[in-house]
């Protein structure tokens, strides 16, 4: 038995990582808006325009990258599926067969529809309804990725559990890693001279994001355990297979991220609470911003690992 495409497909791995990251940042910014920013703005309404513009900018840039990388992902994947060199695979025959006769093609079409809805909502962001529709389509846009991966081909009832766990895992990862981007922008101390009660807004959003972070981490742990149980199956497989070892690397990066998040939650955010005009806790704020940027970098590392993991054989089938 020989393996087709036995080497890592570099361009495919890279484009997957970029697409997952940008999709997560898009969805994460909109989750941040609904769960963190809008509730916090109730007590600081003067910041509404600035904060909404900032979030919309993050979501729009994320979406533009996700749309471009999504198209390239489909083309690279179609070439990989057909087994032809990239140039020869870019025919209407190959592309339409992949689009119309594979699950990857079906999911791509569903995600295209969601992308059009999301783009429209981001372009005409005038009402609360548009923001909720944007959030809904962004959640669908990232969750649908589960159907393109290992979870999409797991057999039987276990397959449904695997899909549900994977979709939730993607949404939770987006909420945490993607939400950090608008948070870091908001906390950046250059904003301290804004004419609204910025300090109180910074504290309020940091606290609300901590709560969202705890829910996300809990969801990531539970769904991650389900996925690992289905795809790896044993501690032995985790240690001896390439898939398991790479998953371990991912877990180490996750643990480092958790360390930063815990520092933010239990040490730095409480120090913001003692903030007043005369006693700025600038050091805590600087540290919080730095930690958030580091967490984002670690999160992007995890997406790079996920880009590879999806192309590897799950450990469970090698044992």
């Amino acid at each position, binding site marked *: 038995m020989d393996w087709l495409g036995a080497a890592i497909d570099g361009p495919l791995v890279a484009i997957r990582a970029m697409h997952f990251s940008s999709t997560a940042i898009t969805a994460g910014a909109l989750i941040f808006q609904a769960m963190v920013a809008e509730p916090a703005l109730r007590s600081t309404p003067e910041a509404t325009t600035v904060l909404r513009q900032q979030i919309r900018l993050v979501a729009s840039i994320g979406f533009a990258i996700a749309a471009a990388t999504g198209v390239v992902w489909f083309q690279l994947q179609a070439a990989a599926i057909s087994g032809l060199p990239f140039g020869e695979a870019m025919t209407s025959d190959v592309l339409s067969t992949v689009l119309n006769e594979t699950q990857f093609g079906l999911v791509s079409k569903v995600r295209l529809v969601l992308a059009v809805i999301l783009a429209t909502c981001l372009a005409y962001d005038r009402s609360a309804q548009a923001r909720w529709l944007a959030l809904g389509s962004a959640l669908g846009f990232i969750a649908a990725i589960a159907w393109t991966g290992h979870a999409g*081909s797991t057999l039987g009832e276990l397959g449904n559990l695997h899909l549900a766990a994977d979709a939730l895992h993607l949404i939770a990862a987006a909420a945490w890693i993607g939400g950090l981007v608008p948070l870091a922008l908001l906390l950046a101390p250059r904003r301290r001279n804004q004419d609204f009660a910025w300090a109180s807004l910074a504290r309020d959003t940091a606290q609300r994001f901590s709560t969202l972070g705890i829910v996300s981490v809990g969801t990531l742990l539970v769904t991650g355990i389900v996925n690992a149980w289905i795809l790896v199956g044993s501690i032995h497989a985790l240690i001896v297979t390439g898939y398991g070892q790479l998953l371990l690397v991912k877990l180490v990066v996750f643990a480092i991220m958790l360390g930063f998040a815990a520092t933010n939650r239990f040490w730095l955010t409480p120090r913001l609470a003692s903030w007043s005009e005369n006693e700025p806790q600038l050091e805590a704020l600087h540290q919080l911003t730095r930690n958030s940027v580091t967490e984002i970098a*670690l999160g992007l590392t995890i997406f790079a*690992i996920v880009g590879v993991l999806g192309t590897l054989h799950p450990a469970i089938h090698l044992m």
Partner: protein
Amino acid sequence: MQRSAIVVIIPLLLLLATGEASAHALLDHAEPRVGNAVATAPREVTLWFTQKLEPAFSSITVTNSAGQRVDAGKTRVSGNQMSVSLRSGGAGTYRVNWRVLSVDTHRTDGSFTFRVGQ
């Protein structure tokens, strides 16, 4: 930010060092069984895989001991199972060649033999 640069770079290096890659749907079992002998030529060959298959990109060909195609051509795919009807090809060693695309977009292929009437 030097410390954080290190915690980003080390996992990436580890990632690059883990150079194992492969494809996905593996042959779970087959009927006639891989490597076994059967008394008379079977009417069809059925293969079961570890994952769901894409019908448009999955197929089986079967040749007899003389190297002639004995499959009827059209491979039927359902879930993780695919089969092809056989024409009579006499006694001897039959070779089954399969290539599949699993639903998670990975291609695998392989082959095995079984014996008829020996």
